[in-house]
């Protein structure tokens, strides 16, 4: 009967640890700062001891487990309330490169050699030290780098191009199931979704993943990879129609002999051109 006892104990402790780990939260476990790692190892050891029944009274083990789980959580809350405790618990970041110059004393303080600094930079695809404007070592030991402005990757802001604001795409179909919550957040419903899928010529069961982007276009991925759904090009087509209208208006302005009509066509052509320029970031990019 010993094996039955171990089985029930293992399952029970498995469930308990699962909930405890969820309570501890994402931050605590992903963060690899030294004490966090030690914390995790101690919890793991305690849990295995509990499962194997190494404690004379398993309540002692649960007690110890409770302390090691609750203490970091309490420290985190206290760190949120007071900056001093925050600095004590987490430590402060160290600046390693400022204004392009390496701070050698800080490097010494972190026991980080120049070689290691260069290696960490290479990990971020930075091979020239001169490109670095600012580099800081975070409390968990990772390095974060700010490049000099002329070495940063180009953004639309730098070129002065207007780009339409894009919200995130919502996944509305997963594994053939329609998800109501994302649809509702977009102000759509299942009827709309069914119509759109019918328009694409497939049925709901064929769809593996479906996403709706910020402007309301539906993109589908099907189970059968042989079928190709053409990417909806509605926006590009609207832009092209408007361009055609503009060209037509300009042509009419040249062809017509009626002076009033000529001015009307020319004015409308200009207005349309202006509209086209405004719509470009929203329809094309």
């Amino acid at each position, binding site marked *: 009967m010993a094996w039955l006892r171990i089985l029930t104990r293992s399952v029970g402790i498995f469930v308990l640890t699962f909930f405890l780990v969820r309570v501890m939260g994402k931050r605590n476990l992903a963060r690899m700062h030294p004490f966090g790692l030690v914390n995790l190892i101690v919890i793991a050891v305690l849990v295995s001891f509990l499962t194997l029944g190494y404690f004379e009274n398993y309540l002692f083990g649960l007690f110890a487990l409770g302390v090691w789980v609750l203490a970091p959580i309490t420290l985190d809350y206290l760190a949120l309330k007071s900056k001093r405790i925050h600095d004590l618990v987490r430590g402060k970041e160290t600046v390693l490169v400022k204004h392009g110059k390496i701070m050698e004393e800080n490097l010494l303080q972190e026991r980080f050699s120049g070689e290691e600094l260069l290696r960490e930079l290479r990990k971020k695809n930075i091979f020239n030290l001169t490109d670095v404007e600012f580099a800081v070592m975070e409390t968990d030991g990772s390095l974060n780098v700010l490049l000099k402005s002329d070495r940063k990757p180009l953004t639309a802001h730098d070129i002065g191009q207007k780009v*339409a604001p894009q919200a995130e795409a919502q996944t509305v179909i997963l594994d053939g199931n329609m998800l109501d919550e994302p649809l509702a957040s977009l102000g759509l419903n299942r009827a709309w979704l069914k119509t759109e899928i019918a328009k694409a010529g497939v049925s709901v069961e064929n769809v593996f993943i479906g996403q709706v982007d910020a402007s309301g276009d539906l993109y589908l991925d099907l189970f059968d990879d042989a079928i190709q759904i053409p990417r909806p090009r509605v926006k590009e087509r*609207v832009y092209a129609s408007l361009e055609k209208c503009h060209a037509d208006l300009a042509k009419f302005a040249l*062809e017509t002999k009626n002076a009033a009509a000529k001015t009307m066509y020319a004015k*409308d052509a200009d207005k349309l051109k202006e509209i086209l320029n405004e719509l470009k970031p929203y329809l094309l990019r």
Partner: protein
Amino acid sequence: MTVSSQVKQTLATLEGAQGILKLYLTQTQDKETKAVFEKAINAASGIIGDLQARIRVLEREENQYKGF
């Protein structure tokens, strides 16, 4: 004088494009995008009005092309 059928074609294309813009207007949720689309739709309405007036004039003069 421009042939009225050409003007009617342009009118139809413009109305079609305006219809799709109206559809996108209801589908987007971003205020900035909505404002730009509304402005475009209003401008298109103005041009459609001008074109329709011109077509009426043309139809009076070219009686054989009357009607759609």
